């Protein structure tokens, strides 16, 4: 592949095999994520979506295959200190994974403090700026993670993921557990941030609405492979039986008002 062509991809996964014991979860999977796009990943529960995400960020060892993030190969080892791409990504874990003994503000300041040499005043200002960008107010900054609602936890986790202005953010089910209004706001927030900061977003989600509104492309994971990838329109027309069942199933029909 030509280097210029390789440049336009933020994440490249080639021929990836991941399994636990004798069970194969990802079976020779390949996936490319373009720079600056929002890619939604759908798949059955327990079908390996989170495994794929965690393998890309190096949390799960792989059996074979290559992974590149921003043109840098990801080592399969779990030594976090040696992971070369750690500065260029931000990760929003499904449960937030906020540090429970730090306040919200300290959680956002943590990556800044650890990775940059900044004056305290600037750390405070940047952290406040990030919190305000995700729609939190000044008093929220002094709360502890155990005092936050589900939606606020996700916002704080997003602020922390964005603290270092990463090129890529990984979102693991960002809207799960949020009411439709909050989920819609979160989708809009992701879209806005993606446009202002020029982010590449890799999003694992089940939320049909957010797939439809924010994702530039959608990839469907079934049987350990990417069976369909493209715009929402392409996926709706896909002939793959699982993809058809996913997008044309009873639940997605429920979104249409019933004809009386």
């Amino acid at each position, binding site marked *: 592949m030509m280097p210029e062509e390789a440049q336009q991809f933020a994440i490249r996964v080639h021929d990836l095999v991941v399994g636990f014991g004798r069970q194969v979860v990802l079976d020779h999977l390949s996936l490319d994520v373009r720079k600056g796009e929002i890619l939604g990943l759908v798949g059955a529960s327990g079908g390996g979506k989170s495994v794929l995400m965690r393998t890309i960020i190096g949390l799960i060892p792989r059996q074979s295959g290559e992974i590149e993030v921003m043109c840098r190969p990801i080592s399969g080892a779990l030594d976090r200190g040696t992971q070369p791409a750690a500065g260029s990504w931000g990760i929003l874990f499904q449960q937030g994974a906020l540090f429970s003994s730090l306040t919200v503000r300290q959680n956002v300041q943590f990556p800044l403090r650890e990775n940059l040499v900044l004056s305290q005043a600037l750390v405070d200002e940047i952290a406040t700026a990030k919190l305000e960008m995700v729609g939190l*107010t000044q008093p929220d900054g002094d709360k502890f993670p155990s005092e936050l609602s589900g939606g606020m936890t996700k916002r704080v986790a997003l602020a922390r993921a964005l603290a270092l202005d990463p090129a890529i953010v990984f979102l693991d089910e960002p809207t799960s557990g949020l009411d439709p209004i909050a989920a819609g706001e979160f989708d809009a927030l992701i879209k806005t941030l993606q446009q202002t900061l020029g982010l590449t977003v890799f999003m694992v989600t089940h939320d049909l609405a957010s797939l439809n509104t924010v994702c530039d492309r959608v990839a469907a994971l079934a049987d350990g492979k990417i069976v369909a990838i493209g715009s929402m329109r392409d996926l709706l027309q896909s002939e793959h039986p699982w993809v058809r069942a996913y997008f044309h199933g009873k639940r997605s029909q429920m979104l249409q008002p019933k004809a009386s």
Partner: protein
Amino acid sequence: MSSPLLTATATGDGIELRPVGSWTAAHVKSLEALSDGVAAELDRSRSVKLDLAGLSELDTLGAWLIEKLSRRVLAAGHRADVTGIADDYAGLIEEMHQVNRHSSAPIATPNPVLARLGDLGRSASNATEDVAVFLQMLGSLFLVLVGMLRRPRSLRITSLVYQLYKVGWQAIPIMVLITFLIGAIIAQQGFFHFRRFGAESYTVDMVGILVLRELGVLIVAIMVAGRSGSAYTAELGSMKMREEIDALLTMGLDPVEVLILPRVVALVIALPILSFIGSVAALYGGGLIAQFYGDMGPPIYIARLHEAISVTHFEVGIIKAPFMALVIGVVACSEGLRVKGSAESLGRQTTTSVVKSIFLVIVLDGLFAVFFASIGM
């Protein structure tokens, strides 16, 4: 990735600033110096033009520093014009324009004397709360126990047996090892020091009485507090954190009955047995030292032991064991239920649980010593 620059050109009564290059987090050190460097000039000029056309890279940090420059000018009451914003950065600069508008309320520093007094008062009220929590747990255990006597089938046998296996059976090897060593050490010290005035045979009296009355049960209780008490606190604490306790409550079940009673009862059963086994191991350790270090064969050791100790000594020791177990169990479980949401609080309550139960075990031992002395046992 060109290094950032900030050029200032004077234009009449104003100044034109041109940020050039990468204004990103990677260059934060020089960026802070650059923007501080022009501060004095900014304050002097009437109108300021910011031309952003030379920027090659911009992130939140850089955009915020530029926003800070223009805010500084506006705050001084002068004009600031920002021009040459590339389309890519327009959103970010607009975003930065919105943030950090509310100045944070200054944190009031309290009077140090008052703060000290406040801390003192708070710790006094915490101490009374500790007593209240202990009594409350004891009371609810008692209530559940009374209810159990009326409905014996509500006792959770499976859970009780499992806890007994964990805190009793699995603890035997380490308890035997520790008490064996303690018995051996006491005997060795006895022989070493008593030998000087020819009272070696009294070593056996010392080992027998000390182990049966005090050390056997005390060492085992302290070991159990560290081994099983901490486990109880951590288990219940993480159940509390994951809302498992709340789930039990909403199913109409009493966590005291389901979780705490089997644990405490298991301790109350296991601790006397462990102290008995531990005492025997300590006496055995003393016997081995007598043979190999004190030149006193097993028949003489056993005969001396037979003369020196009576059932009373054994009773004094073993009577204390269930009470110590109760204290350890109640402290461990009530501290577990006091865990809040954070990982730090789990660690803190586990430490508190172990420290407090060891302290109370020793206090209890002292009270028993006074009691037995006054009734002549």
